[in-house]
């Protein structure tokens, strides 16, 4: 069992997906899916514990083929961490889903939803564990295709156009990645990332590698919605079913960031001769990240649709992660990785809260949330806690990652960067507070039926995520500390 641990998280949902599809029974399909998700989560946690305690990556050679010819799953701390991130959020959000989709998706499509959800999760988990560059592309497409389908399940017809837009851009991005992968293969003769890193130092064709990097950066930038390549994200998040939004927002862009980290630190290298990441980390990433932090946050301020607001906030938060990654230092990378996790929890929780609200009032427009603080007190309270996490108030997970990020900036004597980071987080105060004020200070709209608190089956998963985001704001042993461990591994600092 334990030797198969590395492959288990991918295999379980991947195999369960067709089963769910074939079950056709709504309850059975969702039940199976939820069970599989939680088992995957447990497997992920065990995997992470194993990796952290043994101090060595878990390696699984698919079909027994070794790295030079076959596909190898290479699970180091970072990968295991991302596995836990995806599986945990997948599990919680799917637990939320049955009640939520009952109102949003026709009943006959529920088994379809379950299968797609598992498939998407399998794809994301696959990206995390694989050590093969082409495999990354494949899993990326698996998750993307199923995500397109999931998003298109949205009630609003704009979900369709949003999906189409996402599809076009996603495919362009994936194809860029494919091109980059091909060029890299051409130069190094291998698809295994570790070996690629070893060969890249010897290769003569620096130019080809640079072109590859350009394609890869643009491609993954699209996938992770790095500003200004974020155009697909707002509407996709906005019009997707609540649970899909929560899942996608919490995991898919995060996994893309993971891929970016993997490439920069594992393949191209950041230090010494032969490191290829120079322009990426020195100029491109920080520039995109900072402009995203400011512009996307400002856009969020002016939104009238709260899900769209949160979507733009996600674009801004991606900026923090990218900035952390680009700092190339232990605390910078820790900040980036920790923020992956922390923001996933926070944003996942917030979108679930939006799901609760949509479940009760059938709208996510800011104007319809007037006076909601008194009618759905628990939901709004959770929303407020999540909002505080977005701002990065102490005791929330957002604070922890911001701490590392600012620290990293200051460690490099980049005071201006620290100031920029903190100033941009103030924009979050504004957009979060717009919602809070609307919910607490305005009279509820007339003529609507009395709104009551969301059912427990929705509230509990929401509370779990928001609670976790508070918990990991205080106890960082399994969030930021692991992120720090992963960062040290990536930077080659032996523990």
């Amino acid at each position: 069992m334990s030797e198969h641990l590395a492959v288990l998280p991918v295999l379980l949902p991947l195999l369960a997906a067709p089963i769910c599809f074939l079950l056709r029974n709504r309850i059975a399909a969702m039940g199976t899916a939820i069970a599989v998700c939680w088992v995957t989560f447990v497997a992920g946690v065990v995997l992470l514990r194993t990796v952290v305690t043994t101090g060595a990556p878990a390696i699984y050679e698919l079909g027994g083929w070794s790295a030079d010819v076959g596909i190898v799953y290479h699970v180091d701390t970072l990968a295991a961490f991302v596995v836990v991130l995806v599986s945990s959020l997948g599990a919680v959000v799917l637990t939320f889903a049955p009640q939520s989709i009952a109102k949003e998706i026709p009943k006959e499509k529920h088994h379809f939803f379950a299968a797609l959800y598992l498939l998407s999760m399998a794809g994301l988990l696959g990206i995390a564990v694989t050590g093969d560059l082409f495999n990354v592309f494949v899993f990326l497409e698996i998750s993307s295709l199923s995500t397109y389908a999931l998003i298109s399940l949205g009630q609003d017809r704009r979900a369709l156009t949003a999906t189409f837009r996402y599809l076009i851009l996603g495919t362009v991005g994936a194809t860029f990645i494919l091109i980059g992968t091909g060029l890299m293969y051409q130069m190094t003769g291998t698809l295994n990332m570790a070996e690629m890193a070893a060969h890249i130092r010897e290769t003569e064709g620096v130019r080809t590698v640079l072109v590859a990097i350009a394609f890869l950066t643009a491609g993954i930038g699209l996938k992770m919605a790095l500003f200004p390549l974020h155009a697909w994200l707002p509407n996709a998040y906005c019009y997707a079913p609540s649970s899909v939004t929560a899942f996608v927002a919490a995991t898919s862009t995060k996994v893309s960031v993971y891929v970016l980290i993997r490439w920069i630190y594992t393949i191209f290298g950041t230090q010494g001769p032969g490191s290829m990441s120079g322009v990426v980390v020195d100029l491109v990433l920080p520039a995109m990240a900072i402009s995203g932090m400011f512009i996307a946050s400002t856009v969020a301020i002016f939104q009238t649709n709260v899900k769209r607001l949160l979507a733009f906030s996600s674009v801004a938060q991606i900026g923090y992660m990218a900035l952390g990654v680009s700092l190339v230092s232990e605390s910078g990378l820790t900040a980036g990785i920790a923020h992956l996790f922390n923001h996933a929890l926070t944003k996942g929780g917030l979108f679930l809260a939006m799901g609760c609200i949509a479940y009760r009032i059938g709208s996510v427009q800011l104007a319809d949330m007037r006076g909601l603080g008194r009618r759905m007190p628990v939901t709004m309270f959770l929303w407020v806690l999540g909002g505080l996490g977005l701002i990065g108030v102490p005791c929330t997970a957002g604070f922890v990652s911001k701490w590392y990020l600012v620290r990293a900036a200051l460690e490099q004597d980049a005071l201006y960067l620290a100031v920029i980071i903190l100033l941009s987080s103030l924009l979050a105060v504004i957009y979060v507070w717009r919602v809070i004020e609307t919910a607490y200070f305005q009279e509820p709209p007339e003529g609507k039926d009395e709104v009551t608190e969301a059912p427990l089956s929705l509230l509990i998963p929401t509370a779990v995520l928001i609670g976790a985001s508070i918990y990991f704001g205080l106890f960082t042993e399994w969030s930021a500390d692991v992120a720090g461990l992963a960062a040290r591994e990536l930077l080659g600092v032996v523990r």
Partner: protein
Amino acid sequence: MSEALGLYNYWIVIFLMMTGLYLVISTGNLVRKVVGLNIFQASVLLLYVTMGRVDGATAPIFVEGRETYTDPLPSVLMLTAIVVGVATTAVALALTVRINEAYGTIEEDEINEQEHAQELAG
């Protein structure tokens, strides 16, 4: 010059790539966009297959007397890529059908106008 011409396969790749992207950008028709995307993806197939070729090599099937074989891996990879491409196209076309049902058009400009009106309505 001859060197540049010798890389004609790559020129074709680039041409196809540009054509595909141009189609996606230039047209408002969703189906044509999908076609453009397909062409774009096809260019990559060509790129891979090209890079797998070795001068004077034969197909990677053991044949007596042949020492060099082309790299089989890119071709194999492209099988996967083709599958992915087909799946993508399928999803895209399915979406187009649904969009046509919902909006009564597959022209992006018109769809945008309708969405704009919907947004104003709230």
